[in-house]
């Protein structure tokens, strides 16, 4: 009895799934790591989703699931989306990498797009933004503006994307301020406002007057505002509600053009596996308005650096750069290749502490 009802259920699910495929609406699913109201990372992805809806109107249907933990639960959510007839699924956090690959194997006709990962398959593309370009601008402003010469950095997980950001910010802070020191806290979460605020408070108590964050909520901004004379940068989203101070600038992720293009590709049947990694030049990374709390000359330099990166004239990882252990990485004038950057698992010379393994 139980077995037959199970079979019947499975048959129904399959029937629904094929029924949904038969419709002419393209269904696009989004899996989010935090709530859409986080004011940061997920908020920007959801703006991308809304842009897709606006672009295609009736021809598209979008669905999303928020606050999906990285791990087995993500696999369940993706499977559910695929069963419900999604044609294209964006999985928007690094930790969804293996779940995405696993689910993609089971649904060869569904296209998957994984953000910030590096594993592809015939129906899995990866896309990411060159956040480290934005980090270079932040590092420059931070190095110039710090008075205590201590810059606090809240990392989420020790993955290449975060390590790249730390290295890029450090190189550019050090360039303009040789005395600068980075204090790094690994929060081991993408989204936990209370913990992020605690981390910011601890860094401020230990002397930091600039806080860089690579976690998704605006809590560190609130903590910095509470503490007073501290500056911060918006992460993933503009976070302009904390401008002009503590937030003096930001990195904004602009996913909308990519999401629209990929949805279009699915509709046209021209979708194929790609490995997209766009930066300031393509508009996937934007630098939020630099507020008046930044002196005019520093603002000018930051804008010039942004323009140079947009024109493709400047690469944030340009030699000579040594690794933390003193070994050579990039020779004079040499720029880092994408392969090394994508798998970056080392600090550059001058950073203290070890990367958790």
């Amino acid at each position, binding site marked *: 009895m139980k077995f037959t009802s199970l079979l019947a259920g499975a048959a129904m699910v399959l029937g629904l799934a094929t029924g949904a495929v038969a419709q002419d609406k393209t269904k696009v699913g989004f899996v989010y790591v935090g709530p859409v109201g986080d004011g940061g990372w997920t908020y920007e992805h959801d703006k991308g989703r809304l842009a897709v809806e606006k672009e295609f109107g009736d021809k598209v249907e979008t669905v999303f699931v928020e606050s999906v933990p990285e791990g087995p639960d993500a696999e369940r959510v993706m499977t559910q989306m695929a069963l419900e007839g999604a044609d294209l699924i964006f999985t928007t956090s690094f930790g969804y990498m293996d779940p995405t690959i696993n689910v993609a194997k089971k649904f060869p006709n569904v296209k998957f797009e994984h953000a910030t990962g590096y594993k592809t398959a015939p129906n899995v593309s990866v896309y990411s933004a060159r956040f480290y370009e934005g980090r270079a601008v932040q590092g420059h402003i931070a190095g110039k503006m710090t008075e205590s010469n201590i810059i606090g950095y809240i990392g989420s997980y020790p993955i290449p994307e975060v390590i790249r950001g730390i290295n890029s910010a450090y190189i550019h802070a050090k360039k303009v301020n040789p005395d600068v020191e980075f*204090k790094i806290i690994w929060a*081991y979460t993408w*989204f936990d*406002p*209370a913990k992020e605020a605690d981390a910011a408070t601890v860094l401020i108590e*230990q002397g930091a007057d600039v806080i860089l964050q690579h976690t998704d909520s605006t*809590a560190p901004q609130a903590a910095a505002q*509470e503490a007073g004379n501290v500056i911060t940068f918006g992460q993933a989203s503009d976070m302009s509600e904390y401008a002009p101070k503590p937030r003096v600038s930001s990195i904004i992720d602009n996913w909308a053009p990519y999401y629209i293009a990929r949805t279009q590709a699915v509709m046209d049947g021209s979708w194929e596996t790609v490995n997209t990694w766009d930066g300031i030049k393509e508009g996937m990374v934007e630098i939020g308005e630099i507020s008046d709390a930044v002196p005019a000359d520093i603002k000018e330099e930051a804008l010039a650096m942004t323009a140079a990166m947009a024109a493709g004239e400047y690469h944030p990882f340009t030699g000579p750069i040594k690794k933390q252990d003193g070994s050579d990485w990039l020779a004079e004038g040499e720029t880092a290749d994408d392969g090394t950057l994508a798998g970056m698992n080392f600090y550059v010379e001058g950073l203290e502490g070890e990367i958790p393994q």
Partner: protein
Amino acid sequence: MDLGEINPVLLVASLMVAATPLLLAAIGELVVEKAGVLNLGVEGMMIVGAISGFAISVETGSPWLGFIAAAIGGAVLSLLFVLLTQFALANQVASGLALTLFGLGFSALMGQSYVGVKPPSMGDIHIPLLSDIPVIGPILFQHDPILYLGIALVAAVWATLRYTRVGLILRAVGENHDAAHALGYKVIKIRILAILFGGACAGLGGAYISLIRVPQWTEGMTAGVGWIALALVVFASWKPWRALLGAYLFGGITVLQLNLQAAGVAIPVEYLAMSPYIITILVLVILSADKSSAPASLGRTFHASH
């Protein structure tokens, strides 16, 4: 590595702040469980308290009114649990989980227009004379009022459960609801009051995060504190002072490990990150070697006709 950069006074002061939301939620749940009800909806009641408190204090400009609203918000949500478990006699585990899911979604809805708003500050009480004592002053006598309220609640719950008739009745209901019923106590009524108390405490704990600890409103901002509070009650063997100890241990080690990381101590970060959980559990398990057990009627549905 430079341990000198960690200021022990600031450390202890901030651990008390980090522990307070957990403490408030745990002491409320402790009373609920002492009455024999297992409410897994702590997380949901906390987040609803967080947004209720935040919204009201932003609208009125008074953090005090905010906290009162948070307590009411948490209690109102727990009414839903009352309805499900005490009148409809639904399963408590399932109802509690539903409460959490509902609370998270509902708070996100309520909070949509409050993202990025700065709440009015409550300010700290500087107790005259005492707060000027070096070291002890900043640690003990320069906090916000709600932190003291948390400690006072622990003392009150402990004294009530231990020394008063009300406490005795509450425990009787939790240990054996049939016997309590036979003695003429109104089991359902007592449980409802306990659940409402738990809801109000959880609401206060949530508002402490959104109004004092962070302070801002973000969806899902309690990020699992409610679950930790639930675990804490069990590991504290349903004893108020142990819940306080556990909350301070957990909050303390959380803040300490962040401090150690920032100071660059050469302990692998993974161990530091898991240390609050492990140490709190270890200490409380060792303390509970006296075999104090759960209230006997915990999680069981009561119906007078049984």
